[in-house]
C-alpha cells in the first residue's frame, strides 16, 4: 500500500466529482491555445484519478500538465460539479515537490527567494526617488513585477498618489512569497516577517497594493495574520481610487481586462469599472469580461515555466481587444500588464496601461493644455 498523498486527504473526493463533461474546454486558456485535452481541467482530473488508483505515478511525465495551469479559475467558476481545480493543482504540486518532482523554473524560483528578496533575484530595487519607511497613513506596496519590470507604470501610479496628496510611504518591501505556495513550496517566513515588520513600523492603518496577487496573499494567508491583528487593512489600488472624482476625460475607445486575481479570485469587478466610466465615456467591454474573462496567461507560474505558451495566451486575449476596436486596454495588475504589453504585436496600435497609470497620463496632458477636458 502506498502512503496517501496530502492532496488526496483534502481533495480525493472532489477529484472524483469531476463528471468529465468537458465543459472546461470552453474556458481553459491553456486548452484554448493548444486544444490538447491533457492540459485542461478534465484531463488533469482524469490523470489524478489514475494517480489515486495507482495506475500512474506522480512523476516527471505529469509535469507538463500539472505545472501548466495558470490557476485562473475559469474552469472552476464554470464547473457544473463544483470542482475547485486551482486549489487541487496547488495541493498536488506540493506532493510532487515533496517527492522530488518539480518544473525546473519553479525550483529556480524557490532557490531565488531563498537567497534574494524578489522573484527576479535582482537586489537593487528602484527607489522611485521617494523616501521609504517613514511614518504615514498609507503604505503603498508595489509587488515584484511593479518594482522590477513595470517600473514605469509604478512611477506613474506614485505620481498619481502624489497628485492626490495621499500621505503614503514606500517600504523596503520584499516578495510577499505567496507564489511559492502555488508552485509546490511553503511560503518564506523570513520574507513574510520582513514585510510585516516594515509595514507595522510605519504606523499605517492601510496598505494599498498595486498587485492583486499581493492583495490576496496579505488578506488570505494565515502567515500575514499579524497585519489584521494589528488593525491594518489591505486594499487594492482599484478600491482606493474608486472614490475620487476626476475632471479629465478621454474620448478614446477604452476597454478593460479583468485580472484573474482581482476578478474571479477576489470578486473585484465593479471598482475598476467605476473609475473607468468616470473618465472614458467610450468604454466597451471585451467579449469575455468579468467572471468570463480569459486569462492573460501569466498566472500560476506559467509565464516562468512555459513562456512561449504564456505569450501565446496573451496574444489570444489581445485579439479580443482588437475585435472591439479599442485604442486603450486598461488592466489593474502589473503582471497582466507585463504579459499583455510584451505580447502585443507591432500592428496592434492600442496602448496597454494600468488604470492609475492612464489616469496620471490624462492629468499630465490636462496640465500642459490647461482647461482641456477632452484629452489623451
Amino acid at each position: 500500500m502506498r502512503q496517501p498523498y496530502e492532496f488526496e486527504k483534502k481533495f480525493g473526493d472532489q477529484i472524483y466529482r469531476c463528471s468529465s463533461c468537458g465543459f472546461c474546454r470552453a474556458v481553459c486558456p491553456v486548452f484554448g491555445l493548444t486544444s490538447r485535452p491533457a492540459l485542461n481541467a478534465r484531463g488533469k482530473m482524469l490523470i489524478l484519478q489514475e494517480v489515486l488508483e495507482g495506475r500512474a505515478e506522480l512523476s516527471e511525465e505529469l509535469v507538463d500538465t500539472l505545472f501548466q495551469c495558470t490557476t485562473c479559475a475559469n474552469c472552476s467558476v464554470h464547473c457544473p460539479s463544483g470542482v475547485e481545480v486551482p486549489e487541487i493543482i496547488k495541493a498536488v504540486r506540493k506532493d510532487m515537490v515533496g517527492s522530488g518532482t518539480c518544473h525546473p523554473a519553479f525550483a529556480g524560483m524557490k532557490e531565488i527567494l531563498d537567497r534574494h528578496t524578489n522573484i527576479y533575484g535582482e537586489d537593487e530595487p528602484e527607489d522611485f526617488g521617494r523616501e521609504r519607511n517613514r511614518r504615514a497613513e498609507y503604505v503603498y506596496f508595489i509587488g515584484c513585477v511593479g518594482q522590477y519590470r513595470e517600473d514605469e507604470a509604478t512611477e506613474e501610479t506614485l505620481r498619481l498618489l502624489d497628485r492626490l496628496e495621499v500621505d503614503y510611504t514606500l517600504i523596503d518591501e520584499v516578495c510577499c512569497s505567496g507564489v511559492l505556495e502555488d508552485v509546490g513550496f511553503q511560503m518564506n517566513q523570513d520574507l513574510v516577517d520582513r514585510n510585516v515588520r516594515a509595514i507595522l513600523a510605519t504606523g499605517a492603518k492601510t496598505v494599498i497594493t498595486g498587485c492583486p496577487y499581493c492583495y490576496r496573499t496579505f488578506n488570505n494567508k494565515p502567515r500575514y495574520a499579524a497585519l489584521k491583528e494589528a488593525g491594518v487593512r489591505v486594499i487594492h489600488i482599484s478600491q482606493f481610487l474608486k472614490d475620487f472624482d476626476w475632471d479629465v476625460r478621454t474620448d478614446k475607445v477604452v476597454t478593460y481586462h479583468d485580472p484573474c486575481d482581482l476578478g474571479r479570485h477576489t470578486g473585484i469587478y465593479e471598482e475598476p469599472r467605476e473609475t473607468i466610466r468616470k473618465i472614458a465615456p467610450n468604454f466597451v467591454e471585451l467579449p469575455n469580461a468579468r467572471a468570463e474573462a480569459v486569462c492573460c496567461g501569466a498566472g500560476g507560474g506559467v509565464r516562468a515555466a512555459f513562456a512561449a505558451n504564456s505569450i501565446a495566451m496573451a496574444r489570444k486575449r489581445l485579439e479580443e481587444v482588437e475585435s472591439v476596436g479599442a485604442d486603450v486596454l486598461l488592466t489593474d495588475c502589473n503582471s497582466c500588464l507585463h504579459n499583455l504589453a510584451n505580447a502585443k504585436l507591432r500592428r496592434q496600435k492600442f496602448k496597454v496601461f494600468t488604470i492609475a497609470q492612464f489616469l496620471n497620463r490624462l492629468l499630465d496632458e490636462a496640465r500642459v493644455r490647461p482647461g482641456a477636458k477632452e484629452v489623451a
Partner: protein
Amino acid sequence: MKDDVKASLRELVGDANYTDQLIDLIAYSKDGSEHRHRPDAAVWVEDSGQVSEILKLANREKFPVIPRGAGTGLAGLAVAQSGGLIMDMSRMNAIREINIEDRVAVVEPGVVYADLERALEPHGFFFPPDPASGKVCTLGGNVATNAGGIKGAKYGTTKDYVMALEVVLPEGRVIRTGSRCMKTSSGYDLTRLFVGSEGTLGVVTEITLKINPRPPLSATAMATFDDVEAAGRAVSEIMHSGILPSVLELMDREGLRAVNTVTGADFPEVEAILVAETDGYTEEETVYQMKRVVDIFKKNGARSVKRAKSREEAEALWAARKAAGGAFTRINNNLFVEDLSVPMSRVPEALKVISEISGKYDLRIPTVGHAGDGNLHPCISIDARDPDQVRRMHEASAELYEKIVAMGGTLTGEHGIGLAKAPFMSMEHEEGTLALMRSLKRVMDPNNILNPGKMALDG
C-alpha cells in the same frame, strides 16, 4: 501498436500533431460516460487527406481508429475500448462557408456548436438542435450521434439539417454524399446513414448544414402540477392542439428536490413542472400560441401557471430547469444520464415507470425531459465507489430499458448507443434489422477499423 507504426503516424501528421505521451493517453481514455480505456496514441488531423492516409495505414497494420470531437459523448462513444488510435478532429475547426441565399453553412467537423451559433447570429439564422453541451461539443460529434436538444419537438434534431457530407470511408476513400439543394431524391440517402453512425462507418470531414431563420420573439410560461400524469396529459394535449411550442421541458419532484438541496433554492417541490416557450415573428403570433398552451395547462389541473412579462421573468421561470444539470451532478460523485424516448402519448406512463424503479432499487433518479418530443433523461445518482450501488444502478437501467422498449420507446433519443447500450440493442431491434446493420458495417469496414465495439456491430 508497434513502434514503426507510431513512427509512420508521426510522419503523416507531423510532430506537433502526434502524441503517445502518458498524459495524453490518459486524457483521451474517457468521454463523458464512465467507460474508460487508454488508446496507444493520438493524432490531431488537419484535412481529409491525412485522415485517408491514416485509415489506409490502419487497414494495413490492423489497428482501431476512434474519431473524437470534444469527447462529451454520454454513451461510451469516443473511447478506445480495445486500444488503437484516437483521431482528434477538433483542430479541423474552420467554418468554410455561410451562405444565407442557399440557407446553408459548410463547416469542418471540429467546429464547436456555439462557434457556429455565434457566426450565424448576425445573419439572424441558427442551427436549431441546441444540445446542452453546445458550448463545447463539436458539429462532427453532433452528426455522429444525431444530437438533439430542447427544441426537438418543433425544430427536429441534427438529422433534419444535414444536407451533405464529405466522409472518409474506413478503407481511406474520400466520398461526398447528398447535395446542397433543399430537395433531392437522388439515390440512396447515404447522408442519413452516416448521421448517428457513431464514427463506425466513416470519418466526417465536412458537413453541409441547412440553417434556419431565428424567430426574434418568444414567450415563456411555467406550470406546476400535483400529479405527474396530469402534466403528461397536458403535454400530449398541447402537442396535438395544432400549436408547436419551441420548447416544452419537464422536471419531476425528485429533480426539484435535488435542485433545492444542492443549490439552496426554494422551488416548490410539486410532482412536476413544465416550462414552455413559444416563438414567432410577431408578438400576436407568439402570444396567441402561448395563450393556448396556458389554457391547456389550466384545463389539465395545473396548480399554478406563471407567464413571464420580461426577459428577467422568463429567466426566473427557467431557473429550476437550468439548474438541474449542475445540481444533479452534485448529489453524489456519479451521475448516469439515461436518454429514453417514448411516443408522445406514453410520457405519463414512462414517468411512472421511472418512479417505480427508483423505489424498487432504492436509487435517487431525478428526471428532466424534453417532454415535447417524448425524450426523457432519468438521471441515476450514485456513489460509484460503492459496488452495491453500482450493481443496483445497472439492474435498474436494464429494467428501465425493457419497460420503455415494451411501450414502444427507444433506448436513446439523442445520446447514442456506444458501449453503454450495445448489450441492449437486441432488445429494441429485430434480428433481421441488426443483421443488416452488421452487414453494412462489414461491407464498409471489412477490417473493423473504425470505432470497434460500439453499437453491437461486432456480434
